[in-house]
């Protein structure tokens, strides 16, 4: 498993091509999620996106969920890349690639990784709009990609109430 957290842009296919070949020998396929900066948000234009992160914890958390995916699913290996710093609309933010012998495991693991990443990896987005800057404050479960109901990831507890 490989985790990269960096400011620079990345080329998803070049990263996949550079992945250690022996780790994914026998793969029948790969599933890749690429997340990009949207150019709108609740009826406002987005000029840029600033991503803050918690150095050290981000890598640790991404490695933890990669290991968890390898335990849960019959995959050969995985790659997670995530950027921080100032990004422009259309820029790549994140990619998750998973290789497996049989594609069902790669689909399941890729989806698991991006879902869990979004609720547990310490990154925070700040949208720069014509009206100013504002933190993206959605509750993480609400951003889990579905319009239907959701539950919060059980491994992350956070308080929605007063702390004192």
């Amino acid at each position, binding site marked *: 498993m490989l985790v990269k957290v960096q400011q620079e842009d990345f080329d998803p296919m070049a990263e996949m091509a550079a992945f250690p070949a022996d780790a994914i020998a026998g793969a029948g396929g790969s599933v890749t999620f690429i997340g990009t900066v949207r150019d709108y948000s609740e009826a406002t234009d987005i000029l840029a996106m600033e991503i803050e992160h*918690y150095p050290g914890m981000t890598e640790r958390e991404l490695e933890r969920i990669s290991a968890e995916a390898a335990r849960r699913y019959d995959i050969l290996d995985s790659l997670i890349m995530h950027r921080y710093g100032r990004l422009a609309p259309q820029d790549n933010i994140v990619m998750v690639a998973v290789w497996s012998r049989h594609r069902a495991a790669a689909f399941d693991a890729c989806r698991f990784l991006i879902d869990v990443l979004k609720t547990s*990896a310490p990154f*925070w987005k700040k949208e720069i709009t014509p009206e100013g800057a504002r933190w993206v404050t959605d509750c993480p479960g609400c951003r889990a990609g579905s319009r239907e109901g959701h539950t919060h990831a059980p491994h992350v*507890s956070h308080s929605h109430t007063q702390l004192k």
Partner: protein
Amino acid sequence: MIHVKFFASVRERIGIGEISLPMPEGGATVADVLALAEDEAGVVLQGAHLLAAVNLRHVPFSDVVRDGDEVAFFPPVTGG
């Protein structure tokens, strides 16, 4: 000492990125550390949606901290 870090909107609200606090005698939970840091900053993060980490791991606010720990507070994450 307890090494406390704040990130993103929580860092902006409390006005502190990092602060080191003396380890309280008699022990402390993560929630206690937050209260101590709030006292130090003169800011109360009332009603905030907060996550906490100790030594780079997500933890509940009830966890006990040890001398030398790095304790971080931040809003629900919005990466990906």
